[in-house]
């Protein structure tokens, strides 16, 4: 990867490093808007700090609401990144290369935002240190604290390792184009990377270990998140399948999040040459596969409970299927699983736009799913009274808006500090093709072969699971 002086490599660097140097008006506007939303959310939270959780819609019957929904939602999205990028690395899926960096970004950011949510849910946030000082391992909450902090640490390492060579590229290429503090940052953060054989070997060992280690950690995280629910004596959550259901749902929503964030960054930073429609289609296939898994889980869950109609579960079943929460439930099942599944299934709709629509539907659907699990689950009365209601207040709406704004904001800031595409990995892959190309083997190229296409070129929508058209 050292001294390739040909066009594509330099063009790649120019495109990917561009945003680190130049900042457009649109970016400033976006960041300004996001900051305003976050500030508003902080104001909303300050009223909660002053008056207590009484300013929320949560009461002693339905005592979890938006905060816990967002917690599960963002932790779910975080699975996008590390898990997907690790799985793709492990199975050596070549097309992953330009995607992994963004996926890993999303993981770190979503984990940070998601991890913040339960803290907002506390009556006494000033006592958070008690979790460390007096933590007890009997409590599923401590399992969460442990697994999420492990996952966050692991994801930061996993994001950082493949960043090192890129940071070195930034250090070497971006001289006086960037302010001094950024130069300092690149110098320190690239930890003396020179691309020597030994350094490369160490990096590849580290990456290989991390990508294997991070998978069980990621799986454990969402399993433990599900246990927060499943470990309590609440009938609708009394399910041994909850762990697997949550892990699948997490990856499902994670893929959708990657697709959307990727589409935004691709547009904003003009990465059309590197992130092609094929990447979206491939992620669309993964999304489509997961709709089947999710549907299977739902069928197993609701056919069993609906057949028995025992006690409190029958109340839950009825409120989901036909009563109060039926709109949410059907929006989730039809809108969030069946429809995206069909969009991916038919070649006609399996296009760039189609995949984006499917991803958006999945994200909305999965938010609904978490709403159903948390709020509708808690609504099942423990006591023989009329079931209570959860109506979120303006504080909770504001904090939800703030959480999404924060997610966007951190990604926006990250995109100015780090290359959003792994330059060295893409370049390395490009070189491999150069070598392979020489004997003119007729083998299908990995997707990044499209790296040499013009920015406007797109692989054909049909048969997109093969290499870019032309080589076959």
């Amino acid at each position: 990867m050292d001294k390739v002086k040909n066009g594509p490599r330099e063009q790649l660097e120019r495109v990917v490093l561009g945003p680190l140097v130049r900042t457009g008006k649109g970016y400033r506007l976006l960041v300004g808007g996001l900051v305003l939303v976050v500030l508003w959310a902080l104001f909303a939270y300050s009223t909660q700090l002053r008056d207590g959780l009484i300013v929320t819609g949560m009461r002693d019957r339905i005592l979890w609401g938006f905060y816990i929904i967002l917690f599960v939602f963002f932790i779910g999205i975080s699975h996008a990144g590390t898990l997907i990028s690790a799985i793709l690395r492990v199975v050596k899926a070549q097309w992953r290369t330009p995607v992994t960096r963004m996926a890993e970004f999303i993981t770190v950011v979503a984990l940070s935002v998601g991890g913040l949510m339960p803290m907002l849910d506390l009556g006494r946030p000033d006592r958070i240190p008690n979790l460390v000082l007096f933590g007890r391992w009997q409590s599923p909450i401590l399992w969460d604290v442990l697994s999420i902090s492990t996952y966050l640490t692991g994801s930061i390492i996993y994001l950082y390792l493949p960043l090192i060579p890129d940071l070195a590229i930034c250090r070497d290429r971006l001289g006086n184009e960037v302010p001094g503090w950024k130069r300092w940052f690149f110098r320190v953060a690239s930890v003396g990377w020179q691309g020597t054989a030994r350094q490369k070997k160490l990096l590849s060992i580290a990456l290989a270990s991390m990508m294997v280690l991070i998978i069980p950690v990621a799986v454990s995280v969402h399993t433990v998140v599900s246990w927060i629910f499943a470990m309590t004596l609440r009938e609708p959550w009394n399910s041994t399948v909850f762990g697997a259901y949550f892990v699948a749902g997490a990856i499902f929503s994670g893929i959708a999040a990657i697709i959307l964030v990727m589409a935004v960054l691709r547009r904003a930073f003009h990465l059309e040459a590197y992130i092609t429609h094929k990447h979206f289609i491939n992620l669309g296939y993964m999304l489509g596969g997961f709709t089947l898994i999710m549907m299977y889980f739902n069928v197993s869950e609701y056919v069993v409970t609906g057949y028995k109609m025992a006690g409190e579960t029958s109340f839950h079943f009825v409120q989901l299927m036909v009563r109060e929460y039926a709109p949410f439930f059907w929006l989730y099942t039809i809108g969030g699983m069946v429809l995206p599944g069909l969009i991916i299934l038919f070649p006609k709709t399996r296009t760039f736009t189609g995949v984006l629509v499917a991803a958006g539907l999945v994200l909305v659907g999965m938010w609904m799913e978490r709403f159903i699990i948390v709020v509708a689950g808690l609504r099942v009365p423990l006591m023989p009274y009329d079931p209570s209601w959860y109506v979120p207040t303006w504080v909770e709406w504001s904090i939800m808006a703030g959480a999404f704004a924060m997610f966007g904001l951190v990604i926006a800031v990250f995109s100015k500090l780090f290359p959003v595409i792994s330059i060295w990995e893409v370049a390395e892959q490009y070189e491999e093709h150069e070598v392979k190309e020489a004997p003119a083997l007729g083998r299908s190229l990995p997707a990044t072969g499209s790296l040499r296409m013009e920015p406007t070129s797109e692989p054909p929508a049909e048969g997109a699971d093969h290499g870019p058209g032309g080589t076959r």
Partner: protein
Amino acid sequence: MGITRRSFLRRAAVVLAGVAAAGAGWSYLKGLAQSANEAPDQAASLPSAPVQQRTPQPHHWAFVVDTTKCIGCGKCVAACKEENNVPEDPHFNRTWVERYVIDEQGEAYVDSPDAGVHGFESWPVNSKYQNIQVVKSFFVSKLCNQCENPPCVQVCPVGATYKTEDGVILVNRSRCIGCRYCIQACPYGARFLDPNLRVADKCTWCYHRISKGMDPACVEVCPVGARMFGDPADPDSAVAKALRENRISVLKPNLGTRPQVFYIGLDQEVR
């Protein structure tokens, strides 16, 4: 290339300094948390009894509710609120009284207006449940069951809720972080988040009274003796007698929580 000894030593020194700083921060936090524990605890705003008077005797307390005697006057709820500084807001209660009304079809209607603190006189059954033919009606008072296997203690992340040697579940208000997981874990709806202190709260069987040999406030004021408290090991106690002479049951026995509040004459509709 690589790391020279000098740079290694320099970096190691930085790391060590970081660890030392983290340690210092840790002990600072620990100090903070300890001082928080020493801070005046509202739970202990009891007349400061000499220590020897509060000996945790080898008791194992039990509570008996005779639902056949309860008249739904709500004096127990009022006494509890006064004795334990429970917020006046009817949403927050350490004990409450439920009214069960069974109609001809065997349908059960349950209500607990203002937790029953004002009694049920001004809340006629039929104003809420129009056109039902009442077959039978009774009151059931509820409180923390002080379970032998308390799910709330199991899930508390910081050990703020705990079981005393004499079998009462208490909340350490100066440690509770207000995560409300215990409230969610309790299958009996016995817990709530204190809106002022923002920590979990629940019935303690008036631990400050029972540990001085007195009855809980609700037992003290009950005009019909529907609530009894004592140590079943003492054969002369009202509780031991009630447990001996009646057919008793507990709430939700299937959950395996082993409640220590025993009910006489519990109807199948009561959950």
